[in-house]
């Protein structure tokens, strides 16, 4: 009996249902991908070596903000809960580490560990208390909590060192700006890995189910409460870690840094970076952290802005304040997937797939009946 074969089917599998060969890049394709990877690596790993210390400090901040974006993404991107007080989570980590290292004389590693733990614990408490509070109301609670952290918790003098803040020197072996930068990159890599593993696991998928529809999720046997708390702990722990890294990077922590505006800034960079896209989040976090720096550095840009002299000169600081929300609005309205969505075709290409300009990730099904 003649076997019907489709033209694509190689003869060996004539009796099997037709399958498509997985896409394999050509040799040239491999070379191209390799070059792009090399370029990225050069930018992130090699470029800092030639820059002055103060520039590298900015890059470190960028790396830490990337961690913050990843942490906020766990709540906003995976679970669908918004935190308008994330500066508190990060700040607690910063002060914890600074306190332990400067006042208690502990080592940097103890400080970082404690900061991560306390960040997670604090998030757990807040999450536990607010379990019954849904969606938008929860946003208000986090907002209020953020204010409490800035205006009450961080004003406890014994813990936070009074007005000028707490010093937090870098650890031995990593005292130079460059070494510390690589240390932070390492931490970033660890966080990315943890995030990746988590989302591949059952708990990760449970979180995503929560975002879609908690009620439906619970019918699948997902313990909604536990999953939520889990998300909180992970988010808080990441945030605490970022805080500790920031503290030692700046070598100083002060209460007024962790303001409501900073929390909004974190939300902006996470959303513009692109929810649920790790690459986008890292780029988003770094980009926003470096925005004033970039404005200073891109030749001619600062002068161009300064031409705007009326009513007041448009300094990089003012420019950042204006650009950030513009990007946020643009993003939310036109490009909901953020940077992550836009670079997805390139990202897929770099991991060995075909370059597909229209690949914008799995289709998102929005369930909009959840009113608060």
């Amino acid at each position, binding site marked *: 009996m003649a076997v019907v074969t489709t033209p694509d089917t190689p003869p060996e599998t004539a009796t099997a249902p037709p399958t498509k060969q997985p896409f394999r890049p050509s040799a040239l394709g491999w070379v191209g991908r390799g070059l792009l990877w090399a370029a990225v690596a050069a930018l992130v790993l090699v470029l800092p070596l030639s820059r002055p210390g103060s520039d590298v400090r900015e890059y470190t901040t960028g790396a830490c903000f990337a961690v913050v974006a990843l942490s906020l993404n766990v709540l906003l991107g995976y679970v669908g809960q*918004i935190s308008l007080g994330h500066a508190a989570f990060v700040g607690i980590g910063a002060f914890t580490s600074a306190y332990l290292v400067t006042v208690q004389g502990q080592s940097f590693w103890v400080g970082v560990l404690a900061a991560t733990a306390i960040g997670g614990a604090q998030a757990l408490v807040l999450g536990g208390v607010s379990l*019954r509070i849904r969606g938008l109301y929860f946003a208000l609670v986090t907002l209020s909590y953020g204010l409490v952290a800035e*205006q009450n918790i961080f004003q406890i003098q014994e813990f936070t060192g009074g007005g000028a803040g707490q010093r937090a020197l870098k650890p031995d072996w990593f005292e130079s700006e460059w070494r510390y930068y690589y240390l932070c990159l390492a931490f970033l890599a660890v966080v990315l890995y943890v995030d990746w593993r988590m989302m591949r696991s059952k708990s990760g998928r449970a979180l995503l189910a929560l975002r879609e529809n908690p009620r439906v999720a619970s019918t699948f046997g997902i313990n909604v409460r536990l999953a939520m708390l889990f998300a909180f702990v992970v988010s808080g722990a990441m945030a605490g870690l970022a805080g500790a890294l920031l503290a030692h990077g700046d070598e100083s922590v002060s209460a007024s840094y962790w303001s409501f505006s900073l929390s909004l800034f974190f939300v902006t960079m996470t959303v513009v970076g692109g929810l649920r896209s790790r690459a986008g989040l890292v780029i988003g976090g770094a980009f926003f952290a470096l925005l004033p720096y970039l404005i200073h550095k891109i030749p001619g840009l600062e002068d161009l802005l300064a031409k705007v002299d009326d009513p007041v000169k*448009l300094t990089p600081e003012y420019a950042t304040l204006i650009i950030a929300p513009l990007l946020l*609005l643009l993003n*939310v309205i036109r490009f909901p997937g953020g940077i992550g969505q836009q670079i997805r075709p390139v990202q897929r290409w770099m991991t060995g797939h075909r370059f597909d300009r229209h690949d914008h990730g799995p289709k998102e099904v*929005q369930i909009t009946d959840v*009113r608060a």
Partner: protein
Amino acid sequence: MNDQQRRGLVIGLAIAIVLIAVLWLMDQEQSIVIGIVSGSAYGLVALGLVLIYKSSGVFNFAQGEFGGVAICTLYLLHSSGVPYGLSVLGALLAGMLFGFLTERIVIRPLFEAPRVIVLVATAGVALLAIALQQWLFDNQGRPIARAFPQRDRITIFGVQVSDQRLWLIGTLAVLAVVLGLFFTRTNLGLAIIGASQEPTATELVGISVRRLSTFTWVLAALLGALAAVIAVPETGQFTPGVMTAGYLIPAFTAAVLGGMTSLPGAFVGGLLVGIIYAVASSAEIFQDIPGTPSTLVVFLVLLGVLIVRPQGLLGKPA
């Protein structure tokens, strides 16, 4: 008013009576007056918040800056010589225009989006407005004249209440009642509620959901502008972003306390929050709290309300 709301009203009255009694005993009666006088500003902003929530299901973070745009316009017009009355009118129009643009450019495209994303978008609008104000004024404050010069119209418990404040309280009360009736008795009001709950059905009966949306946002912007224009001159000055930093968060707390779905609730909530702030800032027992005591107290109240009675005093349970 259904049972739940009746119960809420009773609870509210009970709280009020207890609070007043306690304050009387502590010799702090002036906190009541201070609270009511400041709280009326929060209440007016809260009215706008509740309005938007009832009609679009959104927490409007830009509500404060609807007022911010208005107050800036008022300053700019008045300081270039425009008579005060016209300046106020201009300010209200500017606020309404801002609300209109926000609805068209930001809210409309996000009709189907999750409410959390819309919240983020309104926060973006607020941030942009604040950034522009900071740039415009080089981050410096500016004086603002009042509409009604008499400062000591009546004195209660030693606190002088000016004409400006009486107007604020009066406007708040009238608007709360009028809007409450509007949503329960008029066709337009009912249509707005209907549109928020069943947009498709509303369209099917021939009502343009889009037009309703524009209408409510412009109305909310008007409320925000009114709040700013009447309340801020009482303090004599404004700084960029003051509406969000100083009024929005208490207003949200007021709305939650009173019930996010209840317009009269916003009124009541505003006054209560004002009193809470006044007491928290002045009562002895709170002064040992590190930093700003009222922040912590308000947080606890918010948390308490959301855990114990999430619909607030006068709201409907979800």
